[in-house]
């Protein structure tokens, strides 16, 4: 099953072909990158298939494998799922939107 298409965002990426093709065991989520996370990944959104029951933390680990440069900000960032506060242990559901928000400092 193809990952859900994010709508008309810059840097849209859909080629994360997951090994796990079992529909019942994986869910699709969109990951939104802000600020420095956008520089480091070169994308503002990616669509991702993750095992059912994955937490924000384990999804973050997956993202670190895909984008090792994200290591730079992973100790200083906010996570939000569907615009609500999330921490590493918050679980993701199918269709969720995980936002990765490092602080901006410019002014």
């Amino acid at each position, binding site marked *: 099953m193809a990952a859900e298409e994010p709508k008309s*965002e*810059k840097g849209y990426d859909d080629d994360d072909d997951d090994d796990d093709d079992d529909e019942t065991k994986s869910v699709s989520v969109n990951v939104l990158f*802000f*600020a*420095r996370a*956008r*520089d480091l990944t070169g994308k*503002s959104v990616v669509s991702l298939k993750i095992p059912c029951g994955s937490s924000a933390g384990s999804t973050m680990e997956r993202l670190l494998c895909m984008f090792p440069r994200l290591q*730079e*900000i992973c*100790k*200083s*960032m*906010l996570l*939000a799922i569907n*615009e*609500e*506060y999330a*921490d590493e242990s918050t679980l993701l559901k199918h269709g969720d939107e995980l*936002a990765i*928000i*490092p*602080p*901006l*400092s*410019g*002014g």
Partner: protein
Amino acid sequence: MERRAIEEEINKLQVEKLRIESRIISLQSQLNQNGQQKQLDDKNLSGWKTTSSPPYGDHGLSKELIYRYSRHLLLPDFGIQGQANLLNSSILVVGAGGLGSPVALYLAACGVGRLGIVDNDIVELNNLQRQIIHTEAFIGKHKVESAAAACRAINSTIDVIEHKGALLAVNALDIISKYDVVVDATDNIPTRYMINDGCVLLNKPLVSGAALGLEGQLTIYHYNGGPCYRCLFPTPPPTSACQRCSDSGVLGVVPGIIGCLQALEAIKLASSVGVSLSGRMLLFDALSARIRTVKIRERSLNCDACGENPIFTKKLFRSFDYENFTETPIFDLSCENLMLLSKEARGSSNEYEELLNNGKPHVLLDVRPAHHFQIASLPNSINIPLPNIEKELFTIDSALKEIGQCKETDSLYVICRRGNDSQIAVQILHQNGYSTAKDLIGGLISWANLVNCDFPIY
């Protein structure tokens, strides 16, 4: 008269007409400026404030203030009480740059009783694209003076306090303590932590905004039991993650929008009107024209600043080294600071000029991003952006081949904007067998300063 002679006469007269017209326009604008100055002088002499009538009614607003703020007073949700609260309040704006410009202008216009502005910077030409409070006439002058003058020009009935110089741990508590609300409109991480800690210690709400590139962020810290900056970011981001406008660029209107929203939130706090952004963070994405508001975490009980057992006392605060804590300098040095290479692996702009004058064949590699290279570059330089070097070594090889040189040549030079990336590039080249590649100290900025003053600096 011959037809041709008439045409010539017409042409001549038209040129003359243009000259006279432009002269008239120039004289008129001089007259207007003098007139405005005269009006200003007259006004200052008569004194706007001294013509002010006594307060009318319980709210304390004079008839002049009622007229000035009438559009606020007409708002049922704001009204005379909101305005009276605002007039009795004091707000400190830290930073008179891209964010601080609209903040200070709107706070002055809307009638905050006492408006403090802190900044240590001087107005520069390359600020004016976004720092709309400053004008060309103030280039070279202190931003605080310029901003205060602009605020007073809009509203001479409020107190505008100039805090010239940087907000530092040694003076921050004294300055912050004089105000009810603090607006963080600064451009660097160490100052952001410092303002946060100061606001927590003195129990002041902090309206925090940030902008870079095409994005902005906005929230309110330490208000109504909400989190502080340290609750959200107990660990400072590494220096590499703290981009500045002078490196990454910023579209002028982006900090303008965030600054306007900061002014709005500060006005709401000061006038006790509406629901604040505390506990939520607004994310502005100019490129996709999208604003998101995300819920952020609650106050952390383990927070070093606002938790149950905070480590910060006023005494510790005054001596706390924020630059060391964040590993980031407060001031934008905008010059080379990396020292990765030995002396032998570096050349100066003047040496490179000599080499050009001698007509020595060589290859000059420019490792800036392509969009920088498009602004201005040295003749015959080859652009390979730093991240691509290892992938494009063949380009260097073929350029060297053209001048009859091989990898080990001493004719390979590397340049960038300021002389940092060029050092990293030379290290990569050395590792790849280009054993005597050299970088140019201080980059193109040094070239413009030392050799060719016509070369554009950006």
